[in-house]
């Protein structure tokens, strides 16, 4: 049979695997939001990672800043999600929409959102301090199957983010606003002709992606802490997942998110966390060279 050491190693690998899967599921959520906003509005959001932190900070403010802990995370979600929607909608209307009329507005949007990212990052540092904030786990306790130990937190993060994606997918295919979003993505002019309010759809799409990444922020901040400076890294990760999975393909994003979540967990376990961003960067370059359209992307 296996020696004691081998079994311990196997348990350790299982732990890493579980961590990778639960992180990966949140990445999937973020990648879907990103693919949506870029696919529909062609606006690339450099502040995406800072909205991730914004979700975490809103939850922290509610639970510890104000001290309102009644209902736990249910209340947090009920309060923070609409708040994120409002923030996203207002930002799109105030900042991105005025740029649409200009020549090469896509580049201008990138500069603007990068400025926004710098602004938010330093704002978080000033307001909340450089020290990381932590959120309590959504569920305490562990589930033990034989010798394997799963924490309820990991399981719930996994279930909630996959559930979030499924709700989103259902909305996109079955509700009026979802179909309008799809119509605008396929043919903006045609959508306008049949009377779909394009500007409002753009703003809503931006807002929905903000909600998704904020939701991801609330979920993952319990495991990772909220780091004011981490916005850039998270944005790069979300974008690597999106590019690796293929732009505009939700299923590709899903596979890519799990592959990258696992890759990151194993690279972190083997070489240390600081190498994970290097590994991701190499993966991104390899993807772009070998298969620029990504895993499931349609290509041009």
């Amino acid at each position, binding site marked *: 049979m296996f020696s004691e050491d081998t079994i311990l190693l196997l348990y350790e690998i299982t732990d890493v695997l579980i961590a990778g899967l639960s992180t990966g599921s949140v990445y999937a959520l973020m990648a879907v939001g990103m693919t949506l906003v870029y696919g529909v509005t062609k606006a*690339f959001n450099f502040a995406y990672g800072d909205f991730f932190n914004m979700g975490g900070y809103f939850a922290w403010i509610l639970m510890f800043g104000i001290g309102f802990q009644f209902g736990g995370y249910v209340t947090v979600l009920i309060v923070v999600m609409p708040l994120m929607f409002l923030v996203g909608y207002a930002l799109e209307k105030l900042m991105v929409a005025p*740029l649409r009329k200009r020549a090469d507005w896509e*580049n201008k949007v990138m500069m603007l959102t990068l400025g926004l990212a710098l602004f938010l*990052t330093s704002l978080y540092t000033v307001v909340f301090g450089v020290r990381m904030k932590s959120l309590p786990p959504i569920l305490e306790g562990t589930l033990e199957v034989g010798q394997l130990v799963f924490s309820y937190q990991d399981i719930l993060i996994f279930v909630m983010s996959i559930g979030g994606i499924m709700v989103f997918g259902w909305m996109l295919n079955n509700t009026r606003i979802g179909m309008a979003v799809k119509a605008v993505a396929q043919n903006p002019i045609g959508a306008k002709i049949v009377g779909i309010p394009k500007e409002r759809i753009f703003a809503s799409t931006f807002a929905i992606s903000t909600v998704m990444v904020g939701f991801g922020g609330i979920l993952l901040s319990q495991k990772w802490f909220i780091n004011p400076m981490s916005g850039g890294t998270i944005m790069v990760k979300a974008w690597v997942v999106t590019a690796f999975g293929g732009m505009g393909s939700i299923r590709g994003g899903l596979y890519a998110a799990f592959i990258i979540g696992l890759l990151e967990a194993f690279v972190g376990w083997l070489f240390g966390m*600081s190498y994970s961003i290097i590994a991701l960067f190499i993966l991104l370059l390899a993807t772009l060279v070998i298969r620029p359209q990504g895993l499931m992307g349609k290509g041009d």
Partner: protein
Amino acid sequence: MRLKHMAIIIGVAYGIMALLPLLVGDIRFLMNILIMCLIWAVVASCWDVMMGFAGIFSFGQVAFFVMGAYCSGILAIEHHVTPVLSILIAGLFTAGMGVLVGLPCLRLAGPYVALVTFGVHMALQPTLRGEIGIALGSGGSVGLLTIPPINIFGYSFSSANIVPTFYLTLLVSLACALVIMFVIKSYWGVAFLALKDSQDFAMSLGISAFKYKLMVFALTSFLTGIIGAYYGHFYGVLSFRMLDLDLFSILMVMMLVGGLGHYPGSIIGAFLVVAGSELMAPLGAYRAVTMGALVVILVLALPNGVMGFFLKRASDRAPSG
């Protein structure tokens, strides 16, 4: 803008700079700021050539600057190379890295290029801090502390004799500015602009996108690397903290104040923003917040920067010219 006008603006800006030490030459703090103005002017101009003229949306300029600085610093400390030579080697090294980064970017569209170059920026910090960097001699999380000053024929240009150092910086910076000016006004510059406006049409006229885009990467990263190496030797210490977002946002504000694609503008933008950012020093941590907000406001309100503003005024006054 015509070559004559560019030359006049550059001449006036650098002329004023050259006169300032007569007034404040014995205040070391102010001289340091002036030297920083000259250094950042080059970096901002290079970034402007990349984004405003060639239309390549690269966010890797700070990374190239740091690469150049570290390369020259490591050469001088570990391998005892004379600073002037090590600066040139650093420039060539950075140019090579620029071409390496540029190669995958050639096939990519806007946001992908932005992301790959931003990825270079993000990946550089753990590389310098981690074991790879330590093996190369980057000093890990301490950074480089004892970079020797530039030494020409036994005369050392350090912050001890700051006025001569200032004039050396002025010469280097002016040389870079003139190189950029002539490149923009030469056949290359026209090719960059043509590729930016319509790549397909430019290529149908026989302009090789491959060649010119790589050239932009090589040229801008060469100049940025040289000035980064110069910065390292002047400052004497280097830390990976330079890759934090502060510097990045200040550089972006410089470029936006000057006006994207309005070349000598970024030089004036750099002068204004370095001075302005020193004036904002009492704001403390809020300075970075202000810089971020400024980027947003400038993109929205002043799309062509100071330069575009004045050019518009000028063309309003004389519609025929």
